[in-house]
Structure formats: C-alpha cells, structure tokens
C-alpha cells in the first residue's frame, strides 16, 4: 500500500499535469506554470526551513541570481538549456559559499543575514548597469514559437524542475540526510554528539534549497521575457514559499506541494474579488494561518485520515 503513496500517487498527478498541458488554454497554462514554480520554491525552502529548521529568507536571492545568470548567459548566446543548468550550478555554488559563512548563525541572526543577502544582491544588480541593465531591466530574446507552444514549453520546463525537486525531496526526507536534518532541527547540540556532521548537513540543505530555485528563476526569466532587480529579488519571493510550506505542513514531503497549490488558488480567488485590498487579505490569511493552523493542511488532514483508518 505504501507503494501507492510514494510512487503511484505522484505519477498519477504527473500524468494529469501532462494531460492538462494539452487541454488547458494559455491562461490556465500560465497559472499552472506559476503553481509549479511556487512548488519548486516551496519544496526548496523546505530543505533548509522545514527539515533543518533554519529560517532562511534567501529564496529571493537564489531566484534573482538564477534569473539574472540565465538571462545574461542567454543574451550572450549560450543555448537556453545550458544557461538554465548554469543558473542551477551558479546558485548552488553561491549557496555553498554563503552557507559556510552564515549557517553558524542561529534564529533571528540567520534570518536577517539571509534576508539582507537578497537585498544586497538586488542593490548590486541595480548598480551594475553594464552587465545587468540596472534599473532598466533586462530583455531576453523572444522565442520564435507559436504562442500556445511557448506556453506549453515553459510549462514543461517548469514541470521538469518541479518534478526533480519533488523526487529529490522524497529521497532526502526518507534518507540519512533528512534524518540528520530533522535531528538538527530539534536539537543541534545533541545531533552533533550523536555524530551528525551538522555543519556539512546544513550547508548541504542550504545548497539543495538553492539548486532548483536558480533554474526556476532562469526559466521564469525566459518565460516572461523581461526581468528587473526589484522583481527578481522581491522579498515576497522569500516569504511566499514560507507561507506555502506552513500552509501545507513543514518538513513533510507533500506539504509544500499542497501548500503551493492552495496558495495559488487563494491568490487567484482573493484577487478576483478585491482589487486594491488583496495584500491586506493575504496578510489576514497569514495571520489566521499562523495562529490557528500552524501544523499545516497535511498534518490536519493526515490526522483525520489516520483516525479513520485506525478504527478496525
């Protein structure tokens, strides 16, 4: 039965998504691509924030770096796929170096350091006009492709990244690394004494939280054709994944995915109805979520399911 859970379930979802790509119209494809992107961000943050318990606000930094790395390479004539891969590599290496520098900080200090890294990067990109276009933004080459095909193309590109992130999450969460991260989250000193190489594990988790966000940023840049510092390094890119993960259930495998899906729906439903007060409503949602459902959707429903199956 467990097989169904871990392999068949995701496969069914994957098949549905692929099928969806051929029936949905462009707008819905765009929404779905966004959902996949959110899922990548949420699953990625889950490595460092959900599993290791380190409140990272660096997602925007990785996303922006990936977007600019991909865009600059593509403008320089590097093939698209290669530029995406390079974005992943670059953000991964960046995360490794950054992680070594700031992962010895705990709690608020770590949160702020990671937050400020994104701010500093944005300023750097803003100032480095020759390379990045500065505040003028950067336009990417437009694909010579039919509109619908283009929508499908980016949908599938994002799907591949999201699926990879998911698979890696599944492997990590069930393996030694996930176990170790869970120990670190609950008691880092005790984990060290039991032989967990906390520093290495944390850096590893931090790198994992970056390597897929980078390509997601690069794909996103190609998809919207235009990036600028204020958007690529938007602090909401760091905050939204956290909300999604909390919404779904931190440290779980399905939580971030469920959270990303639920968040997107909420975003769209909220905005459909209120034009100038949606950030207020998003705020209200966050407040209610934190106060009344800190365990997330997954745990709430899982508990209910468990209760039902537990009865003979």
């Amino acid at each position, binding site marked *: 039965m467990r097989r169904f859970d871990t392999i068949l379930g995701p496969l069914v979802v994957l098949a549905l998504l692929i099928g969806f790509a051929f029936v949905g119209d462009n707008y819905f494809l765009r929404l779905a691509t966004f959902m996949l992107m959110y899922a990548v961000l949420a699953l990625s943050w889950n490595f460092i924030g959900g599993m290791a318990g380190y409140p990272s606000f660096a997602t925007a930094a990785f996303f922006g770096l990936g977007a600019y790395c991909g865009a600059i390479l593509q403008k320089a004539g590097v093939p698209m796929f290669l530029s995406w891969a390079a974005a992943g590599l670059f953000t991964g290496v960046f995360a490794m170096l950054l992680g070594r520098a700031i992962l010895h900080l705990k709690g608020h200090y770590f949160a702020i350091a990671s937050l400020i890294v994104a701010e500093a990067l944005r300023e750097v990109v803003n100032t480095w006009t020759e390379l990045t276009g500065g*505040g003028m933004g950067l336009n990417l080459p437009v694909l010579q492709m039919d509109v619908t095909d283009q929508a499908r193309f980016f949908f599938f590109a994002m799907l591949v990244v999201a699926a990879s992130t998911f698979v890696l999450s599944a492997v990590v969460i069930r393996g030694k690394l996930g176990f170790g991260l869970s120990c670190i989250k609950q008691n880092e000193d005790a984990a060290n004494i039991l032989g967990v190489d906390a520093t290495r594990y944390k850096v590893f988790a931090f790198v994992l939280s970056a390597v897929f966000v980078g390509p997601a940023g690069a794909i996103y840049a190609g998809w*919207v054709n235009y990036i*600028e510092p204020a958007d690529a390094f938007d602090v909401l890119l760091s905050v939204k994944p956290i909300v999604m993960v909390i919404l779904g259930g931190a440290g779980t495998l399905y939580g971030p995915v469920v959270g990303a899906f639920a968040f997107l729906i909420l975003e769209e439903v909220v905005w*459909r109805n209120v034009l100038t007060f*949606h950030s207020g409503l998003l705020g209200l949602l966050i407040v209610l979520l934190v106060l009344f459902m800190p365990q997330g959707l997954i745990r709430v429903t899982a508990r209910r399911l468990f209760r039902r199956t537990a009865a003979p």
Partner: protein
Amino acid sequence: MEDYRVEHRMGLKTRRIVQAALICAVASVGMSAGAVAADKTLKFGAPLPLTGPLSPEGLKQKEGYDLWAEQVNKAGGIKVGGDSYKIEVVYADYQSNTPRAVQLAEKLITADKVNFLFSPFGSGATKAASAVSEKYGIPTIAATASSKAVYDQGYKYLFGTFTPNSTLTTPLTKLVKEKLPAVKRVAILARNDLFPLAIANVMDGSAKGSGLEVVAFEKYAIGTLDHASTLTKLRATKPDWVFATGYTNDLILIREQMRNAGLKVPVVTMIAGPAYKEYAESLGKQAENVTSAAWWHPAVRYSGEDVFGSTEKYNALFEAKYNKVPDYVQASASASGVILQLAIQKAGSVDPKKVRDALAALDAKTFYGPVKFGSDGQITSLDPPVFQIQGGKPVVILPADIKQADLKPVS
C-alpha cells in the same frame, strides 16, 4: 484574475446576470425589429499597478481611463458602421510587479477576451508587456512610456502617447541658455531607476549639446532617506543649475534638503514632481520657481475632434468628476482611450488588424494635442510644455504660443 469594472457597485454575478438578461432582451427586440443595431460591448484591458510603490501612478491612469469610458458611454458609445459599442475597461492590478503585469496582460487577452489593451505604467513594464500584445496581435496604447527602447523593438501593435525624453530637456535647456546666460554649470542628481535615470541621461546630453558644463552627475539608490551629504558634495562643485529626477517623495526631500544644505542656485529643475499638485502642496514656498517639463499640462489649449472636444472641456469634466486638476498621467490615459476610439471609428471596424492600420495612419486633433505616430509607433506630433511653479501653481513657460509667464530665476 483581478476583475474590476467601471461600474463595480453591483456584484459581479448579479451584474453578469443582468447583463445577460439585457443582452437577451435587446437581442430579441433587435430580432423582432429586424435591422435595428444591437448594443454591443468593446472591452479594453488595463493592467495597472493599483497597489505597491507605483500605486499613485496606477490610480491616476485609472482615473483617466474611467473618465474617458464614462464620457463615451454617456455619448452613446463608439459607433462603427451601423453598430454602437458600449465601452468596458477591464482592470487588473499587477501590484507594481512587472512580470505580473506581463502575466495579467496575457490573462486579459486570453481569459477576458479584451479587444484592445492599455499598457502598464512606465517604460519598463510597457516594454515587457508589449511582447504579449504583439504575440496576440492586440492594438495597444502606451500612456506612460517614453523611452525609445520601448518603440525600437520593431513591434507593429504598440503605440505611445509620450514623445522621447529628450523633447522634455532640450527646449528647457535652450530657454535657460537664452534667458539666463550666466548659467553655465549643471549638476544632475538622479534616482537610479528606469525613468528618472533615462531623463537624467538625456539631460546630460542636452546640457552638453548646448555648451553647458555638467559638473556633477550623481545617482542615488531607491529608498534613499537622506540626501544631505550628496547635496553638500554638489554644493562644492558650485553649480548654477540643479537638475534632479525621481519620484515625488524623493524630489520633495531633495528640495527641502537643498535649502538645508545651503545649495542656492538660479535654476532648479525637477522631473516629474512639480507636475503633480502634491509637490507644491508639500513644499510650500520651497516649490517656488522650480521648473519642470511634462508631456502635457492642464494649461495647454487644444481643440479636438474627440469626445472631450477641447483641453478646457477636459479639465472641466475632470474637475467635476474628481474635484482636482488633471496632470499629464491622467490626461495621457484619457488620450489613449480617445486615440483608440478615433482609430476604431476611422477604421470603421473593430478588427484588430484594421484598427492597427488606422492607428498607424492616424492624424487627428485631440484635447491632448495633435496625434500622429512615427513608424516606430511613438507619437511625433506633440510639443511637450515646460512649466514653472509660480505663486504656488504651475504656469507654462514653453512652447511660446501657449506660455502663461516667463522663466524666472529661483533666487
């Protein structure tokens, strides 16, 4: 999916039902009456930054579109051939986030099926979103994009109501040289941001082109809370002319701190702050004799063949509706609607391709000024006014035929 229509008091659902009922009723009447024209609707999509840092600008654009739509509908809609079309502007808030603007432009086109599009705010977002309307072949009017880079992409469906940035700085530079020949040294202070930086760059060119010396060119970061030291630094370069660009809040602060820093010069130019009434209101006497330039000003006087008829009538209608004087953003937004309307009427069709051709060939008079587009889609017929705050109010000092006062030195 940020639907927000001009008449938004009724709930969306109720409105849909009423609408459907009306359409049915009209349709049945139409059928029974035979050849009587049915009342149809044309949808105009407008992705705007209604929240976030750009929201003041976005809300202004919305006011401009709303006023236009209201007037057109009051006049019985747009008449094409035998049909008469009501106007509906479908708004979407992109939260001052450019990629979202692109996403929403696509959403407006594919999900809301808008017939025409108004661009998002500013050159950056306009450029980004223009790729979408080009992809779908939807005629698009940019109400607030001036950078050449927006129009030299070779796109066929994008038309803009702002002349290139240099048309703001060059006439002003010439005027200053002529009236105040003692002014030789220019110090430029620019916000490191799309439009403010672009304007500062063309000013640099205009100044050098007319033989002035640019003694300083300083940029400041977005969100800067203090300019004291930068201004102290500028003071040391002994400028005669301080040219500052930025958002209204930046410029208010800079003007205030210029006084604090003892930076007294005969010419102070700020773009775009003085075009907005908040600027003079927030600075009081400090605003006096600050010069600026914009693409439109309520003091200009044009008569037109459009729904507003003339600049005076436009100003009056605007004041009646919003109880304030329009500035160039609101007027340009209204003009964007007017331009599309004229093109549709000239084309005699709502077919995007035909309307696009009519736009390219358009040569019309409007309350906003004469409208004629260059081959790249940017307006060429406009002569942007230069103005100065005098007696707490902006007065036009250029072009000569509509000027209300002469250029005065600051002190």
